């Protein structure tokens, strides 16, 4: 997620006699008549001068800290007097602020925790379906013989090589790997940036664009944008793209990701350009797109991020177990590596035929 960063304009302190408020950067967020915009209304403020000073100097929530270089102490006091004297015009309170006032960092993070939990529950449900397909339960005795630690090593290696590094693409098609990498690593970059920003919590308005915490999400965002536009282009020309089962889900994921990235960039760009009017609306659009992307994740193409590595890891684990020659009670199996699934089929058939009891599989009788 790209987060708010409010750029500070330069207060022009040479206009001492005139009103200071209209020429400060305050107006950008708090509105022409101090009736609010991105920030809350300041007209008729009930806040005391000392609190006012403290908030301006230290920042609060999305409000950036404003240093003495940008707004002198005397100007600050004057701004306070000016906005306190401004008339209260309820009609001028913008909708963006009415919605925006609920968007405190706390409420937003609580909302996302709920969305994330929702997605996690369904993701685990989905993953357990796939692991059931892979026959994890039936493979357990073989894994136990093979060694749990050794199995864990095989799985971890596969998750890194086949999953994170996308080994199969690297081996077969470097260009495809690169385009896929733009999306994968760009997405990881955005995720990492979010986590770092949440932990380090810098005053983002004060952070220059070249700061790593700014650079990381911007570069990652550009990578994802290029990647996703390439995917959309491929959807146009690739005749294989519709496999009859997943196309709608693929489209939903791609479109949501486009919304997330474009709205995120718009928020940053508009703020850098000092156009604050639509920032809150676009920011809400951005948050909604991110929430939808996460919430629909377990049902869209998003799920291939954890399903494919998990299934590939299961395949590698089965291969490793077969290669190690762990004794399964038979000498040789046609197409090695599927005994556990064959046993599942056999016991299922016997159950459907009404024959409950132990079964034994014979190969090459």
């Amino acid at each position, binding site marked *: 997620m790209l987060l708010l960063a409010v750029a500070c304009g330069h207060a022009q302190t040479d206009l001492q006699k005139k009103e200071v408020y209209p020429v400060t950067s305050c107006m950008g967020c708090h509105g022409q008549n101090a009736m609010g915009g991105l920030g809350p209304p300041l007209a008729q403020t009930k806040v005391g001068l000392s609190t006012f000073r403290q908030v301006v100097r230290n920042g609060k929530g999305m409000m950036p800290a404003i240093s003495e270089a940008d707004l002198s102490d005397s100007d600050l006091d004057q701004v306070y007097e000016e906005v306190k004297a401004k008339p209260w015009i309820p009609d001028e309170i913008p909708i963006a602020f009415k919605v925006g006032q609920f968007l405190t960092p706390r409420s937003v993070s609580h909302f996302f925790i709920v969305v994330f939990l929702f997605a996690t529950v369904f993701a685990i449900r989905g993953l357990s379906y796939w692991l059931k397909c892979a026959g994890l339960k039936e493979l357990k005795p073989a894994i136990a013989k093979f060694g749990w630690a050794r199995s864990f090593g095989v799985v971890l290696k596969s998750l890194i090589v086949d999953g994170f590094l996308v080994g199969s693409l690297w081996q077969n098609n470097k260009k495809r790997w690169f385009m896929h990498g733009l999306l994968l690593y760009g997405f990881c970059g955005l995720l990492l940036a979010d986590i770092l920003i949440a932990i380090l919590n810098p005053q983002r308005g004060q952070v220059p664009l070249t700061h790593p915490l700014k650079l990381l999400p911007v570069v990652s965002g550009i990578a994802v944008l290029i990647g996703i536009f390439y995917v959309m282009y491929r959807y146009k020309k690739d005749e294989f793209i519709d*496999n009859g089962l*997943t196309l709608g889900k693929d489209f939903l994921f791609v479109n949501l990701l486009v919304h997330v990235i474009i709205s995120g960039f718009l928020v940053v760009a508009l703020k850098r350009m000092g156009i604050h009017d639509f920032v809150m609306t676009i920011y809400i659009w951005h948050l909604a797109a991110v929430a939808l992307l996460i919430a629909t994740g377990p049902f869209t193409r998003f799920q291939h991020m954890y399903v494919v590595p998990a299934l590939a890891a299961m395949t590698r684990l089965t291969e490793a177990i077969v290669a190690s020659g762990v004794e399964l009670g038979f000498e040789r199996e046609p197409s090695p590596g599927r005994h556990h*699934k064959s046993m599942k089929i056999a016991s299922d*058939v016997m159950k*459907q035929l009404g*024959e409950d009891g132990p079964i034994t599989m014979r190969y090459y009788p």
Partner: protein
Amino acid sequence: MLIDLTRCIGCDACTLACKQENGTPYDTFFARVLNVEAGTYPDVKRVYIPVLCNHCDDAPCLKSCPNKAIVRRPDGIVLVDQDRCRGTGACVSACPYGNIILHREEEGWYLDENEAYEKDFVKLRMKENVARKCTYCAHRVDQGLQPACVVACPTTARIFGDLEDPESDVSTYIEEQKEQTGRSPFHLLPEAETKPAGCYLGTMAEQRPSTLGQSDGIGDAKQEEAQRTQRGQK
């Protein structure tokens, strides 16, 4: 495809016919026959379960493929595109029936690579390091032929056709069996919710091996009772 388990004698002719038709290398079996021994002595029974790709309607392999290399033809046959497959191996685990095969190590071939059969027919369809599976012999079906395993089955345990067409061999056989033996077809692992195209008819023999030759066997008991009531009526 319908497989009648009562008819299957476990001869593995289908396994061989498939290998011969598709020229699969060692350790690659599109069609297998599971030899299952069920029960404890003396109530033991051997059941042969021929398995092959079920060409599911809701195919997990197709959904799991990250490269969209698995396609479904309009007639329902699910194929792995050998050119698009990158050998990720997700489908191998995704198939609950274990009917997708991917070998990453060097493969052994039965014939010399320069033999015309290998060079012009087999190797073109058997690329290395990619996933493979039963194609329902799509190349034969396209020519109006039946899959090799179906043709080879000496007891006609396999019946191939369009389940949606009420006039097809498979539909009429199912109807016939419903009337004559009361059996209706079932699918493998229904809880996987894959809607398989392949279905099975169960075994019919009700008598337990341990009661063979005795008069208290289930079948015999029923017969005797019928005879007794007949005698009583007389």
